[in-house]
């Protein structure tokens, strides 16, 4: 029983690490304004815990990697009430990547769904 649970946890972690970049890029792609990490975490909390496999700390390193790859840009802004915040927004190459990733994701999802429904 314990073994099954740990296998599930591992599988969720792998799924999440494969999709979290796409989700973050999509969230920022849909947002009209730049968003900061905490805001993104809360937005993801609304749609469910699935994407981050539970822990929100996982999204910060991913944001940073996406920024290093040039898909996101960020700047720090002092806020009126509270701490300074790092705002992320999507870049032009980011949008381009997002478009391609969505296509890739759709293809993967359709394929997996087909297999699961016994369509092979």
């Amino acid at each position, binding site marked *: 029983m314990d073994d099954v649970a740990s296998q599930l946890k591992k599988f969720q972690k792998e799924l999440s690490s494969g999709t979290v970049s796409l989700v973050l890029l999509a969230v920022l792609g849909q947002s009209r304004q730049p968003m900061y990490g905490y805001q993104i975490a809360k937005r993801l909390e609304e749609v469910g815990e699935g994407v981050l496999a539970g*822990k929100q*700390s996982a999204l*910060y*390193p991913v944001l940073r*990697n996406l920024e290093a790859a040039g898909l996101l840009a960020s700047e720090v802004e002092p*806020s009126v009430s*509270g701490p300074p*915040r790092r705002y992320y927004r999507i870049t032009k190459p980011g949008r381009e990547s997002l478009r391609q990733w969505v296509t890739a994701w759709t293809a993967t999802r359709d394929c997996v769904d087909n297999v699961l429904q016994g369509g092979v």
Partner: protein
Amino acid sequence: MNAPRTIAEYLDQLRAALRGADPALIQDALYDAEEHLRAELAEQPGRDEAAMLEHVVGSYGAPEEVADIYRDQEIRVQRAIRPPPPPQRRSVMGRFFGVAADPHTWGALFYMLLALATGIFYFTWVVVGISLSAGFSVLIIGIPFIVLFFGSVRALSLLEGRIVEAMLGVRMPRRPPYPAQQGVPLLKRIGAMFTDARSWTTLLYMLLMLPLGIIYFTISVTLLGVSVGFIGAPFVKFFGGVDVINMNIDGAGYHGPGWPGTIGLCLVGVVLLFTTLHLVRGVARLHGQIAKNLLVSTAVV
């Protein structure tokens, strides 16, 4: 470990959980955690810190969980900043000449040439900054100027970190240490700038960059020049029709060497060139360590 009751406690536990990891990774992780925790705190001003942290351990992760997540991520980051390692060559010859196929060698060489320019710039910036700070300290603009100067040095340190990571392949932080928190009186925050050992080691690094830059530049240019000159010897003799060495001192002259000597000179040049590349690699590794020790705050638990 007890549940953290304040943000400082949470960060201490996270630092402890990350003990042994790369200092650059620790700095990034602490920055992220502090940003998130302070945002969470600002979201609901009524809630006290302990209750907020209880909630955060569930959503953001307990310090140990966060540490695990960052360690996992780091493996991927390392893979990203390191180009795929060149195939391990067994033979001594392969290892000696294989250095040219490693992209980091060329990055390191470029860094050593660039170090002269950046070294002069950092040194000038710091010396001018310190002198003006000292001069202005008797005036009303003294304190703001010093604060501005220290801020600029921090920004430069982050920039230098990016250069070092790109050229030398040493992991450096992508985020500065988290700025002193709001609510702390201004004078205390300014005081923290001066008591932070990292501010001083950064200044030391920038001053050191001038002599180091000059040494790096001179060594690499000299060795490259000499080895390329040696390698070119046969071409000079063949196309130029003159001997490579033409000396005439007070009647006693030397013109030569002959063809065997010239070819030998060329071979010496090739060996020297690759030895230089190895040397550059070694110096780059050393400089990476210097940069890491002086620019990244070492976590004291």
